C-alpha cells in the first residue's frame, strides 16, 4: 500500500467534462448570426441566454394552464398556483435554503436589495448607524442603502479593495462596530470576477457587530454551487435572467426569523390576511413581500432553469468556466498592450467567469463596436460600478464574461479580434 497523498495535494475527483457542443444545441439563440458571423456571446454577466426547456416552460404555462395564482378556485388558478409554489421549492433546494418560505420572488436582484434596504434596513437603522459596503459593489447594492440611510439619518461606509481588486478584509473589519446595522457585500464582482470569502465576511461581522449580512449573489448563482446555510449570511439576492432563466424574476432569500419580523415592502393584494380601513393584517412570509399578481410564468421558468443548472452540474460548469478563464488570462497576459484587471491576473486567486481589461490607446467602446462587427458580443463601460472604476483609475473597461456554453474557440476569436482592434488603431 502506498502512502496516501496529503489532502492538499490530492486533486478533487475529476468531474465528467461538460459536453459543450451538446449543451450549445439546447440554446436556440446560439445558432443565429450577427453581421454575417456566427454569434459569439460573451456578455453573460449582463444577461445570459435561455435553454429551450426554459423557453418551453414559459410558453407551456401561457399556452395550457395560465391564470392568476393564489386567487381563483378554478382549475387553471389551482394549476398555476401549484406550479408557482413548486418553483419556489425548487429554488429553495437549489440554494440550500432550509425552508421554501424563506424564498421571496421579486423582479430581480435590484428589487431584492431594495426590499431588504427598505424593510429590514428602514426598521433597524437609527440616526448615527452605519451600513458597511465594499468598493466593488454594483450600483444596485449602493444606491438602495444610500436611500435608506438618507431616510434614517444613517451613513454608508465602503470597505477598501486592494489594487488587485480583492476585498481588504482587515480594512473591512476596521469599519465594523456597534453602530453597524447592515453589511452588504457582493459574492462575485460583476466588473472583475472577484469571488469574496463570504464565510469570512460573516465571521468578522458576527464578532464585531449585530449587523445583518446581505449578499448580492447575482454573479455567483449561475457559476458556482451556492448554499446559503453554509455561507452563513442573513439575506441572499439573485436574478433569474443571469442564470439562464426568464427576465423579470428574481429571488430574495432571508432567514425565516428575520423575514417574519420585517414590515411589508409594497402594499397590495396577496400580502394581507385582513383589510379594514382602520388597519390591515399582513400575511406571513413570503406572501407578505409579494404584493400584487406575481410574475407567474417567469417564476415557473426560473424553477426549470435551476433544475437545468443542477442537471448540468454546478461543479462541471465551474470547472469548465475556470478553464476558459485560465486560457483567456494566459493569452491576454502575453499581450503587452493589454492590461487585465482584477484578482491576480492568473495567480490563481478566486475569480469567476469574468475578465475585465483595458487596451493601450483604445477606448473600450471602440473595442466593443469593432468586435460586434465580427459577431462577438462583449460589454464596454463602467458596468454599473462607477466607484470601482474610480478606484482602479480607469473610465471604463472591456468585459468578457462566460457562460456554460462558451468554448475555447470563442475565446480565441475574441482575442484575434482584439488584434484586429490593435491593427485598426495602429
Amino acid at each position, binding site marked *: 500500500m502506498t502512502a496516501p497523498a496529503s489532502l492538499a495535494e490530492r486533486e478533487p475527483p475529476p468531474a465528467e467534462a461538460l459536453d459543450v457542443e451538446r449543451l450549445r444545441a439546447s440554446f436556440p439563440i446560439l445558432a443565429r448570426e450577427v453581421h454575417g458571423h456566427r454569434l459569439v456571446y460573451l456578455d453573460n454577466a449582463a444577461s445570459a441566454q435561455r435553454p429551450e426547456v426554459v423557453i418551453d416552460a414559459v410558453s407551456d404555462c401561457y399556452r395550457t394552464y395560465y391564470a392568476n395564482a393564489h386567487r381563483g378556485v378554478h382549475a387553471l388558478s389551482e394549476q398555476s398556483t401549484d406550479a408557482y409554489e413548486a418553483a419556489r421549492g425548487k429554488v429553495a433546494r437549489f440554494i440550500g435554503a432550509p425552508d421554501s418560505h424563506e424564498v421571496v420572488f421579486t423582479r430581480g436582484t435590484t428589487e431584492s436589495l431594495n426590499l431588504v434596504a427598505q424593510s429590514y434596513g428602514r426598521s433597524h437603522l437609527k440616526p448615527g448607524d452605519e451600513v458597511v459596503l465594499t468598493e466593488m459593489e454594483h450600483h444596485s447594492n449602493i444606491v438602495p442603502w444610500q436611500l435608506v440611510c438618507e431616510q434614517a439619518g444613517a451613513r454608508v461606509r465602503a470597505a477598501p479593495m486592494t489594487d488587485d481588486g480583492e476585498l481588504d478584509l482587515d480594512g473591512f473589519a476596521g469599519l465594523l462596530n456597534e453602530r453597524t446595522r447592515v453589511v452588504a457585500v457582493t459574492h462575485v464582482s460583476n466588473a472583475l470576477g472577484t469571488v469574496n470569502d463570504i464565510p469570512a465576511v460573516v465571521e468578522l461581522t458576527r464578532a464585531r457587530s449585530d449587523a445583518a449580512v446581505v449578499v448580492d449573489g447575482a454573479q455567483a448563482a449561475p457559476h458556482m454551487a451556492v448554499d446559503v446555510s453554509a455561507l452563513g449570511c442573513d439575506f441572499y439576492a439573485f436574478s433569474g435572467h443571469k442564470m439562464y432563466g426568464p427576465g423579470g424574476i428574481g429571488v430574495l432569500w432571508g432567514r425565516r426569523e428575520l423575514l417574519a419580523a420585517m414590515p411589508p415592502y409594497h402594499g397590495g393584494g396577496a400580502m394581507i390576511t385582513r383589510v379594514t380601513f382602520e388597519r390591515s393584517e399582513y400575511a406571513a412570509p413570503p406572501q407578505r413581500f409579494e404584493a400584487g399578481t406575481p410574475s407567474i410564468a417567469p417564476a415557473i421558468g426560473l424553477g426549470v432553469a435551476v433544475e437545468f443548472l443542477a442537471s448540468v452540474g454546478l461543479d462541471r460548469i465551474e470547472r469548465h468556466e475556470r478553464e476558459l478563464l485560465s486560457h483567456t488570462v494566459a493569452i491576454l497576459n502575453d499581450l503587452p498592450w493589454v492590461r487585465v484587471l482584477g484578482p491576480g491576473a492568473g495567480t490563481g486567486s478566486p475569480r469567476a467567469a469574468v475578465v475585465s481589461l483595458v487596451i493601450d490607446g*483604445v477606448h473600450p467602446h471602440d473595442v466593443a463596436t469593432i468586435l460586434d462587427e465580427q459577431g462577438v458580443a462583449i460589454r464596454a463601460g463602467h458596468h454599473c460600478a462607477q466607484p470601482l472604476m474610480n478606484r482602479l483609475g480607469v473610465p471604463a473597461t472591456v468585459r468578457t464574461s462566460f457562460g456554460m456554453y462558451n468554448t475555447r474557440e470563442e475565446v480565441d476569436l475574441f482575442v484575434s479580434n482584439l488584434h484586429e482592434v490593435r491593427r485598426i488603431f495602429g
Partner: protein
Amino acid sequence: MSDLRDLYQQVILDHYRAPRNFGALEPVSACAEGYNPLCGDQVKVYLRTDGDVVAAVTFEGVGCAISTASASLMTEAVRGLERPRAEALIASFLALMTGDGNGAAGVDLGKLEVLSGVKDYPVRIKCATLAWHALRAALEGEDSETVTTE
C-alpha cells in the same frame, strides 16, 4: 471590414490620437459639460467669444475615438464663425447624425463629413454628438453668464 473603415477613417484616428485644442481655455466666456451616463464618457467644452464671433473653443475629457475626434473636429470647425453660423453648424451636424435631412440645408459640413459613418452605428451616435450638445449649452449659457471665470 469595409464598414469599419468608414467608421474609423484616418482623419478620425488622427484626431483621436492627437486631439486639437485639447485643454482648458483662459480667459473663457462660458463652459459646459457633456456627460453620457450610459458609458461614463465626459467632455468639458470651453468657449471664448469676441463680440459676436466664436474666437476659440477647446475641450477636455475622457472618451472613445468617436467622441474625442468629433470634439476635436468641432473645435476647428466653429472657430472664427459668427454666432448664428456656429449655431447653424451645430444644428446641421446633429441633423447629419440623426439622419434628419431638414437641418442640413445650406450649411457645408466640410471635413466633418468624415463622421457621417457614425449614423450607421446607432449606439455610437451619442458619442459623436456629446461635445456638440455641450457647445450648444455653452453658447446658450454665455448669454446668461451662468458659467464663467475671470
